[in-house]
């Protein structure tokens, strides 16, 4: 396998593995928890290092995952006091743990190569140098296997507990009533997030884990209302982000992980603008159409109300209409033109009158709105 192919493979696996738990973070409005965990695992690594004095020890990973869970737990404790809001609890816990980590590093590990940069930033380009050798055979980069393990664990958890996760995510109270213990599922999910973050930061660096975890699910959230479809779409979008990011990086010879994050942003932007039903364009179009429909109805009701009244000339005059509705001239003209074209109104010496058709439509709509 060529290094290029290996890098892409790692990127795709990591992206898919990250996006799966990310879906639940986004749906449960806990996206920033991933950011929090990516910072605090530094403390876990530092503490693990002090215990083992070995930078390649698996205890570092274990320590990091444990601190990730501890972060969630501490945040919950603060949150449960009801003295501060959830986002504030996150914002208190992780800077504190991160500061302690930095202080420990500068005070006691200054001479060791425990670079905060390498933890926070990460570089995918170096992943193929670290080989997995079994019985003397080189069977590919180590990161492929660790990422694969991560993906399998995530998939297994989500498939096994899909029903529980679904209930806990959308209706925690119902799930408690049904006896699902939301807390258990919650911590299971958080353990998964913590593990995924730790597993992924080696490859892509911790800040960009957030992009991988939150980007694809947020994009998919704009495209579907179905949880299963959202999981599939997130995985797909994650994979696309990974591969296209790699080629962007090769093209400009820049940071691979960085360009993957940039692609995540670009693809989100495209979907955000063009998504059917929920995209910016279609929502703007819908809003302007609704505004038009509403205004047409309002005008018809208005005319119906003042039909034959003594100040009809005032209320329904083509020149005074805008003042009554706080509409500007252009908008008034537009509405009147539309209604004329639909033959709901007619002009009688600068006074707008309902046609027979307009009267019946206005009446019908009034009944539809206000009768039971």
């Amino acid at each position, binding site marked *: 396998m060529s290094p290029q192919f290996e890098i892409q493979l790692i990127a795709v696996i990591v992206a898919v593995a990250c996006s799966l738990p990310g879906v639940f973070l*986004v749906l449960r*409005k*806990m*996206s*920033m928890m*991933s*950011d929090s965990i990516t*910072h605090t695992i530094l403390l876990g690594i530092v503490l693990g290092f002090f215990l083992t004095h070995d930078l390649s020890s698996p205890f570092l990973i274990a320590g990091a995952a444990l601190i990730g869970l501890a972060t969630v737990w501490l945040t919950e404790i*603060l949150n449960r*006091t009801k*003295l*501060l*809001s959830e*986002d*504030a609890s*996150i*914002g*208190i816990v992780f*800077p*504190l743990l*991160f*500061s*302690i980590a*930095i*202080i420990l590093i*500068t*005070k006691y590990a*200054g001479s060791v190569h425990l670079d*905060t*940069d390498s933890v926070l*930033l990460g570089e995918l380009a170096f992943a193929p140098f670290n080989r997995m050798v079994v019985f003397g055979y080189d069977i590919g980069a180590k990161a492929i296997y660790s990422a694969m393990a991560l993906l399998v664990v995530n998939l297994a958890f989500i498939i096994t507990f899909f029903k529980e996760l679904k209930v806990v995510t959308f209706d925690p109270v119902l799930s408690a009533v049904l006896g699902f213990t939301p807390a258990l599922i919650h911590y299971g999910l958080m353990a998964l997030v913590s593990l995924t973050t730790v597993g992924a930061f080696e490859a892509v660096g911790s*800040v*960009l884990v*957030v*992009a991988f*975890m*939150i*980007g694809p*699910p*947020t994009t998919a*959230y*704009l495209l579907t209302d179905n949880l299963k479809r959202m999981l599939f779409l997130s995985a797909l979008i994650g994979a696309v982000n990974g591969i296209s990011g790699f080629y962007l990086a090769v093209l*400009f*010879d*820049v*940071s691979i*992980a*960085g*360009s*993957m*994050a*940039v692609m*995540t*942003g670009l693809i*989100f932007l495209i979907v*955000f603008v063009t998504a059917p039903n*929920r995209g*910016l364009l279609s*929502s*703007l179009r819908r809003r302007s159409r609704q505004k038009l429909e509403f205004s047409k109805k309002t005008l018809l009701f208005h005319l119906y109300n003042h039909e034959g009244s003594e100040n009809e000339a005032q209320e329904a005059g083509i020149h005074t209409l805008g003042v009554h509705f706080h509409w500007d001239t252009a908008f008034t003209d537009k509405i009147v033109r539309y209604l004329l074209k639909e033959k709901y109104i007619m002009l009688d010496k600068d006074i707008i009158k309902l046609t027979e058709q307009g009267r019946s439509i206005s009446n019908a709509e009034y009944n539809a709105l206000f009768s039971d």
Partner: protein
Amino acid sequence: METIFYLLKDYTFQTVALGSAILGLLSGVLGSFAVLRKQSLLGDGVSHAALPGVVMAFVMTGSKNTEVLLLGALISGLMATLFIISIVKHSRIKFDSALALVMSVFFGLGLVLLTYVQKIPNSNQAGLKRFIFGQASTLLQRDVYFMAICGVILLALTLLFWKEFKLYIFDSEYAKSLGFPAHKLNLLLSFMIVMVIIIGLQTVGVILMSAMLIAPSVAARQWTNKLWIMVVLSALFGAISGIFGTMASSLTAKLPTGPAIVVIISCIVIISVLFAPGRGIVQKIAHRNNLKQLLKSEGGDRNVPTI
């Protein structure tokens, strides 16, 4: 005692402590608004999003002047904020997801630009990253002046729009119905918060800035229910932790300033949450125990089930 006395007369210490105190004060004031609007993590997001701006400013001007880099940071921080606000406004995506997404994408863009700059021959880009990750000990007197000027402007704006902000953060719907331009107020407030964050980047760095924004106001919130007292207390807590953090870091070998400030302000938060009168946990527990005793004595031997 003597060391502290000498320290207080030390010029570098004075500069750094003053800078940290100003930052603590400003972030205390504006952080209160961010925390009350439940947007306290904006600090974290914007400070990460400043990276591409810093690198772009360096690429375009070639200078590593503080003001130039800060301007770049400010622009990209504001852009990120605008993105977040419009994503939330125009779709069903929640604030936290939008924040996490925009922040990580901007940071990724910053990394891309940084690696791109590194390839340009003869470009002395070293130090850009340190700028983002902050180093209070490198604060110069002119940086402090700069902070002070920005601070005066921000405080003046806060006073000027006090009534509007107050109305907006507590009841934005009501503000809208009274005819206040809610969207513009939201933008103005966000811009002011971004300003503070960018000023703070240099002192405590990207990651710790969010603590500076949140912690003082959360601590202050426990002691009072009045906005103006909360803001004043929060400014006070911020300034105190700035000064004491700098002091601790000067007196102890190899203790970085930013993290020291954060640890001190976090301690203030913990003390406030535990001991604040009326809201504090200790008083709540004592109150509950009293109530239990009372119910027990009135209800005979029966064990009163906890509610």
